[in-house]
């Protein structure tokens, strides 16, 4: 048996876990610069995680096993998704485990259980966060799947590795349906990763929190795992976008040079995505929660237009 794909798999998951805090730091750094502040540096999120892991856990007196189980589950799901989405190479043993629909399902598990954790302690903030998160998710998911279906109709597969292959081999070049799907995907990714204008990751102002409200009661290593998983989620959505729309650079052949190139390409693309995210975040204000239906409706409309243009124009 060839060990190469398994080593690669391990490498990719490891790279995700390592790159995610750096990417979060990069976005934070750019944001500070764009707002004229001094940045805490690229390593600040990693230092935060390190500090949290060293701290003791303070657990609310009525927390059930669900509350303690959720951080590990959320983290495990993020690792698993990292093993499936091709970011360095398409030659992954785990890639056929899950196609795009399953990846959306994996994100849904993490969200489902985080929302339960929000309800577990019985505070008003937790419930508020859970309720809002599930509302946004239920509006974002149809748009997300429509965007994904548009791409998979173009490439004739729902498997990400196959999509990467077919786009790289030039079967699918830039098409009008892709343009719409990209727009839709960006809007949904902002919603799903909890960025402005949907949620503000930096806020601790009670009434505007969504994701933060659910995890208010976490501390110590539990909080560290959830925060880390959140950073990985940001990276994973970027990987998903890269694999579906800009896969050039992901290694298709088995040689070390291609792999090195793939890693360099990945870092470059992430850097560019970071710039994009910061431009959006500084350019827009956070929306009122009931305006989000319009925001996500627009995303859905874009995805639908993409699908229509696929049938009409292609």
């Amino acid at each position: 048996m060839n060990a190469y794909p398994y080593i690669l798999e391990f490498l990719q998951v490891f790279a995700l876990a390592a790159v995610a805090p750096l990417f979060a730091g990069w976005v934070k750094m750019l944001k500070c610069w764009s707002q004229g502040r001094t940045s805490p540096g690229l390593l600040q999120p990693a230092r935060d995680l390190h500090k949290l892991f060293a701290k003791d856990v303070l657990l609310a007196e009525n927390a059930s096993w669900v509350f303690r189980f959720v951080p590990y589950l959320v983290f495990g799901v993020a690792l698993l998704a990292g093993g499936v989405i091709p970011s360095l190479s398409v030659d992954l043993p785990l890639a056929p485990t899950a196609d795009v629909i399953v990846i959306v399902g994996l994100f849904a598990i993490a969200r489902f259980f985080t929302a339960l954790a929000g309800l577990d302690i019985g505070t008003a903030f937790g419930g508020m966060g859970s309720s809002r998160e599930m509302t946004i998710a239920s509006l974002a998911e149809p748009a997300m799947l429509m965007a994904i279906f548009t791409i998979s109709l173009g490439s004739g597969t729902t498997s990400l590795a196959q999509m990467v292959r077919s786009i790289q081999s030039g079967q699918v070049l830039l098409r009008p349906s892709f343009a719409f799907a990209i727009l839709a995907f960006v809007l949904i990714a902002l919603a799903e990763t909890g960025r402005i204008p949907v949620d503000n990751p930096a806020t601790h102002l009670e009434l505007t929190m969504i994701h933060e409200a659910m995890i208010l009661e976490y501390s110590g290593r539990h909080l560290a795992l959830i925060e880390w998983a959140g950073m990985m989620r940001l990276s994973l959505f970027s990987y998903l976008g890269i694999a579906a729309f800009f896969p050039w650079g992901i290694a298709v052949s088995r040689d070390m040079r291609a792999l090195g190139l793939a890693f360099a390409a990945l870092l470059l693309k992430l850097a560019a995505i970071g710039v994009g995210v910061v431009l959006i975040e500084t350019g827009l204000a956070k929306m009122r929660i009931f305006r989000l239906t319009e925001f996500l409706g627009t995303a859905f409309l874009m995805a639908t237009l993409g699908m229509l243009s696929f049938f009409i124009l292609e």
Partner: protein
Amino acid sequence: MSFEPLQAGCVAIIALLALAALAIALQRAQRFLVAFSFVVSALASLLAAAAGAVCVGRGSVSSVTLLLGLPDLPFTLRLDPLAGFFLVVIGVLALFVSIYSLGYVRGYLGHRSVTRLVVFYNLFLAGMLMVVLANDALFFLVAWEIMAAASYFLVIFEDERVENRRAGFLYLVIAHIGAVAILLAFGIMAGLGTGFSSFGGYSFDAMRQSALPSSWATAAFLLAFFGFAAKAGVFPLHVWLPEAHPVAPSNVSALMSGVMLKTAIYGIVRVAFDLLRDCPWWWGAIILVFGLLSAVLGVLYALMQNDLKRLLAYSSVENIGIVLVGIGLAMIFQSFDLHMLAALALTAGLYHALSHALFKGLLFMGAGSVLHATGERNMERMGGLIHRMPWTAALFLVGAVSISALPPFNGFVSEWLTFQAFLLSPSLPVPMMKLLIPMGAALLALTSALAAACFVKAFGVTFLGHWRGGELSQVHDAGWTMRAGMLLAAISCLALGIFPPPVIDWMDAVTQQLVGTKIGLPLGAFGWLWLTPVAAQRASYSGGIVFLGLLVCIPAVYLLLHIRPGAISRVPIWDCGFEKLTPRMQYTGTAFAMPLRRIFGFLYRIRERVRPAAHAGQSAYPARIRYSLRIRDRVWGWCYAPVARASFLLARQVGRLQQGRIQSYLIYSFVTILVLLVFLR
């Protein structure tokens, strides 16, 4: 002697009927009656499930003619793979529910006689098995009525409550309107098939052979669809369902929601794919559209419920919708001779039927345990039950995860298959359908996301947080038989989620029978692990590896973090430093669903009132605020209330004839005789 599936099925039915009769004889010994009858029902269900499983596995068809029935029209039974599949659906859940009932029904002992429950429970099971096995229209309808009547008596088991009697009445009315439509459909098929010459046309075998003129076939199909849809609770005929299912004893609710609705699905599949065969594409489109409507609206209404069992009942409307989506797609594909895709879509629908039986059964059993322990159905007065009822909570969570279509559980498998079927719709030759059908996929995605929100609410408000109600000291976990029933259902949910390929391979006999082809998964080395319905390059999923991955990742992270001992100290709730937290400040079910209520508000009939009550002089500072909220089904006002009002009006007009005076009645008789004389000269 080899195992004869049809004989085994008959033995199961006879055992259940005998048990129903025996229960009356045993009504003095209530405790023994419960223990004995549910053990035997469990065994009979197991036998029925085994018969179905073997039949589907062999792909065999066998039939038998009984010495019962009308002259010229004997009852016939037939066990083919389709019937076998539904025998498994019914038998497996009936087995689990019977085990659960051993504990659950014991709760009634001392309060009321359970003889009626036992009698009708067994009749109900026997009725469902007979519906599936019937091979002629007459026996089918007899069995259908036994099932409907038995379930009516089960719904009104606790008949001292007015709402139970009302719900039972509503159920009976709609079930019979449906039954009339089914009767007419069979009449058309039998009469036009044989040219009204003999009774022979009433057997399903004759219907299979006859070719109906297409307009009559359409009429038969529409009538049958209407009749079965009324039973299945398809939108907008679902109104009885959220009334009747919650008020029945919970073990019966589990069977009604889990499998009784499936007999209607069976009827639709039987009529469309077996008796009428060549369907035009728009029959499939009708089923698809109603399926999508039921799915989306069912879950939106479920979200607004605060009665746990009502919520589950509305979610059955949703899941029946998802099953119908698969069947509708299969009919559309079949009409364009895309047999492979039809097989995929049909498998998706039937797989969801099986999955839904298991997880909805599990959830109703869980809700029953909660009701048993707390005497409460309203979620707003529960909370924190996970500490008091750890088993029930964990098993209910498995059901909630399965129904929310999250991998690696069984709900996700059928949903994934349905999505794959949707994605293959561009191979249809009609451009319009290529465009519109993928929109259905978006609605399905919306449904599954809303279902997740709905079950976060159901589980979170009921089991998590603090207890909101009054007395808590008597709340206890379910007994071991109840746990065993739920545990078996939960294990089946997981098993169907992790190992779908062997199940789908087993189900190939059904698609082979109905659409003439099978999916034929490549079952090579490790083939049982990979679900690749079309081609490995197109799409693949392995629930087993997702499960294994989580099973490895989570303990690994846990162990890594616990190498160095880190203390966990229990502290008071932080809540951003707020000190005076009370259980009443928790998010309630109503609050949880509020954002979605605002977004989809146009779909409900909402009456929301905020009234500042007493205020001491200053109206700006009311001492108390009254808030009332009522959310109702719009369908009631749109479809049912007018019909009900019209029938009352009509009855009142007709009632004018009854004046109570003998003279007028004599005149009526006289006029009648005159009219008859004129017409029947």
